[in-house]
């Protein structure tokens, strides 16, 4: 038997001026289940709340309706008051008779009638309310960062700084990522290594950070607060804790024909190698496809020369299993494959390079020691043509439909650096639009054009070919309205960037949603840009969308602060208004799973006792920690098994009926 109370607020004259409160009270008293109804000037005040509390106790009310302002305003207040009087807070319903009634209607009669209807709908709903309890789940106070580039490093450092342990899982043998490959950074032109390597060292030495390099996350289960991850640590064939990073093995290794990934394959490295001089951890790794010993059993030179005794040809992949409260994706990017654009002859002419390759050529630690030389013959170039938007803003299927954002600025940087160091080199830049939104960005680009005499040509390049030892570029100058043919020594392609190919796999593992370009979707494009819609998964860096270093670092900090906020909690209380599946009705059709934006629905096959008939069936299971209560699943469910607590089908139907009475 329901014993309901209805409380009608005057809100001073805000409500009482247009709504006849007495009539609402009189009407409430005759509603089914209502045993008590009262009005008061200010229900939200201390005295008003006391009226509610006293009535709950005195009349043994098991549900209340407050006719007042918007629930967005005071629902929490009245729920707290009810809870204080021993009533389940979810047995409170609000009839919004201020914003939706008294404030918009001038006629008292119409206002009063509408208030009565709203009250009646709320009473009809509360009659069907069930006490709900906010769930609780534990929070494992450890975070996992996937990816050890600048995004991952910065996120981990910030989380570690707040006192929480963090693991960085990096698939390469060293952390540092793309930023480690860069020579200078725009718009200040400070050296990339000089600002990155101290952070790498900090990540190594911070006692809250554990670096798991040369490793990949294999499996993730669980949900916000308690994820379980299985990490495969690939065999290095070098004992990480013994190797001193002296590099003797590298010089002695006879198998020297491996492509140096760090230098974008512009030169070679031995089978046993340290990726670059400032690598963290500064430990060698053996490329098992290239090592003579591992492939033929003969050689073993590195083992002989290693004075520390760090080489171990028998090493196997190891697995690490760990629990985490939060996971940050920082999987980064790679440039797209320029050989798809055959008009630029990237795969046939050695002197056509991508910007990241030029970055290595310009770098003092690169294949040419920082001297600008043509890759084909090692000669000094006298003219360089830059082509922008190679694969960006391309909907033809060969490239990416988005703007890669960083190319305009790094091209300006390259052009400026070349003109500064080698004033004899002519530099032409073919562009569609120069996009330089950012602090000091446009000034930087203009400096390249004005002070450094970089020739910016509005137009595109149609074809590049080799002729008598130099390159010929045919392009168009749209401003001069003429086709131009340039003889040049090098062509640099500003290739589009795309999410690292591992991003899709990782996102699937984490049930983080991903867009058609493989960028990870944020929970809200404006208001929750560093969170995935899946609770407990956060985004840092280019995995969410193209961005430069300052933006990456700010996003990393933002993601870290979200993680810290989560890990600071001892328990997570979950919204009790979540979906719930009636296993007696569920037919396991998977419709609900497909519409759930949070991956909160899974399936379980177990024994079901259907009124005495025992049967093993596959039924939907809602993870209450993940469900956000949108209700999309309730509508697609063909058997009506799925319902939303607090907004159940019956409750909304009852409201509809009460309104249409």
């Amino acid at each position: 038997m329901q014993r309901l109370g209805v409380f009608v607020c005057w809100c001073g004259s805000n409500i009482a001026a247009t709504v006849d409160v007495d009539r609402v009270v009189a009407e409430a008293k005759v509603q089914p289940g209502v045993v008590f109804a009262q009005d008061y000037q200010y229900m939200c005040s201390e005295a008003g709340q006391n009226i509610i509390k006293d009535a709950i106790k005195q009349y043994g009310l098991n549900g209340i309706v407050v006719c007042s302002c918007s629930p967005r305003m005071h629902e929490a207040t009245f729920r707290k008051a009810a809870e204080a009087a021993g009533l389940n807070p979810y047995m409170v319903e609000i009839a919004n008779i201020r914003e939706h009634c008294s404030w918009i209607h001038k006629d008292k009669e119409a206002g009063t009638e509408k208030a009565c209807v709203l009250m009646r709908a709320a009473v009809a709903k509360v009659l069907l309310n069930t006490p709900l309890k906010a769930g609780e789940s534990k929070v494992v106070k450890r975070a996992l960062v996937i990816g050890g580039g600048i995004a991952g490093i910065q996120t981990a450092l910030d989380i570690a700084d707040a006192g929480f342990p963090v693991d960085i899982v990096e698939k390469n043998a060293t952390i540092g990522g793309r930023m480690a490959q860069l020579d200078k950074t725009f718009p200040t032109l400070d050296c990339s290594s000089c600002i990155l390597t101290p952070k790498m060292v900090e990540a190594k030495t911070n006692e809250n950070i554990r670096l798991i390099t040369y490793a990949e996350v294999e499996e993730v289960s669980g949900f916000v607060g308690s994820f379980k991850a299985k990490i495969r640590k690939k065999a290095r064939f070098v004992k990480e804790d013994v190797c001193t990073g002296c590099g003797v093995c590298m010089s002695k290794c006879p198998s020297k024909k491996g492509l140096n990934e760090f230098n974008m394959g512009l030169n070679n490295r031995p089978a046993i190698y340290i990726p670059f001089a400032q690598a963290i951890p500064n430990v060698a790794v053996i490329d098992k496809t290239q090592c003579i010993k591992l492939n033929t059993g003969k050689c073993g030179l590195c083992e002989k020369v290693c004075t520390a005794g760090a080489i171990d040809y028998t090493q196997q992949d190891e697995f690490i299993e760990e629990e985490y409260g939060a996971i940050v994706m920082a999987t980064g990017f790679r440039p797209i494959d320029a050989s798809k654009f055959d008009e630029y002859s990237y795969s046939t002419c050695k002197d056509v390079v991508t910007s990241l390759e030029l970055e290595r050529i310009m770098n003092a630690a690169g294949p040419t020691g920082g001297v600008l030389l043509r890759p084909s013959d090692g000669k000094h170039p006298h003219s360089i043509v830059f082509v922008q938007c190679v694969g960006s803003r391309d909907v033809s299927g060969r490239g990416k439909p988005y703007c890669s954002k960083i190319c305009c600025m790094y091209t300006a940087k390259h052009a400026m650096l070349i003109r500064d160091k080698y004033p004899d080199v002519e530099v032409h830049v073919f562009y569609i639009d120069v996009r330089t939104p950012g602090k000091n960005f446009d000034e930087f680009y203009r400096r390249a054009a004005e002070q450094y005499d970089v020739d910016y040509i509005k137009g595109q390049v149609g074809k590049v070919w080799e002729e008598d030892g130099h390159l010929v570029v045919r392009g168009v100058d749209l401003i001069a309205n003429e086709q131009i043919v340039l003889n040049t020594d090098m062509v640099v392609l500003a290739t589009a960037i795309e999410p690292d190919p591992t991003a899709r796999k990782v996102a699937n593992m984490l049930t983080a949603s991903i867009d058609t370009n493989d960028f990870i979707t944020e929970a809200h494009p404006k208001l929750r840009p560093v969170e995935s819609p899946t609770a407990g998964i956060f985004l840092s860096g280019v995995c969410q969308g193209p961005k430069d270093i300052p933006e990456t670092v700010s996003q990393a900090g933002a993601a870290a602060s979200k993680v810290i906020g989560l890990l600071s909690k001892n328990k997570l209380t979950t919204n009790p208004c979540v979906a719930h599946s009636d296993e007696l009705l569920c037919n396991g059709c998977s419709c609900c799973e497909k519409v759930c934006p949070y991956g909160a629905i899974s399936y379980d096959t177990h024994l079901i006792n259907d009124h005495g008939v025992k049967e093993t069936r596959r039924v939907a299971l809602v993870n209450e920690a993940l469900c956000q209560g949108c209700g999309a699943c309730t509508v697609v469910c063909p058997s009506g098994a799925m319902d939303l607590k607090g907004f159940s089908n019956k409750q909304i139907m009852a409201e509809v009926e009460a309104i249409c009475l």
Partner: protein
Amino acid sequence: MSVNVSVNEPAVKAAAENAAGANTENKEWRPRIVAFCCNWCSYAGADLAGSSRLSYPADVKIIRVPCSCRVNPMFILKAFERGADGVILCGCHPGDCHYSTGNYYTRRRMALLFSMLDYIGVERGRTRVEWVSAAEGARFSAVMNDFVAKITELGENVKVGDLRCKK
């Protein structure tokens, strides 16, 4: 808008509501309109319309749902069965859904439902989906005024209604 808000004649429903049970014969017909509003955008938009004192007819009664995608087509059919003259469904603008994709589901579902309603003889104008953000109080009010005017024009809904529900 064409609908006069401050009608002096009490509306027809007063009879059902009023415990005293007044006579229903001579009163002006007013439409019954159910509005489903998502909690994050449209309900807040309706609140803003209220706090900005932007009036719309009292015939509109709002039901709060967490997301427009919570609205089961059954609710709309139920409303018509019970004698509603119009049902309007408001959600966040596409791309702004609090739950990322909810309103896209709404859009597809309602396209189907509306064509079915059309098929069974309920005029297209009686149902509507509108996107109203939390900042669009003025728009909420304008949409409601317009919708009520349209429904008033269409008159009482005689299709689908369950005669047993009629008093």
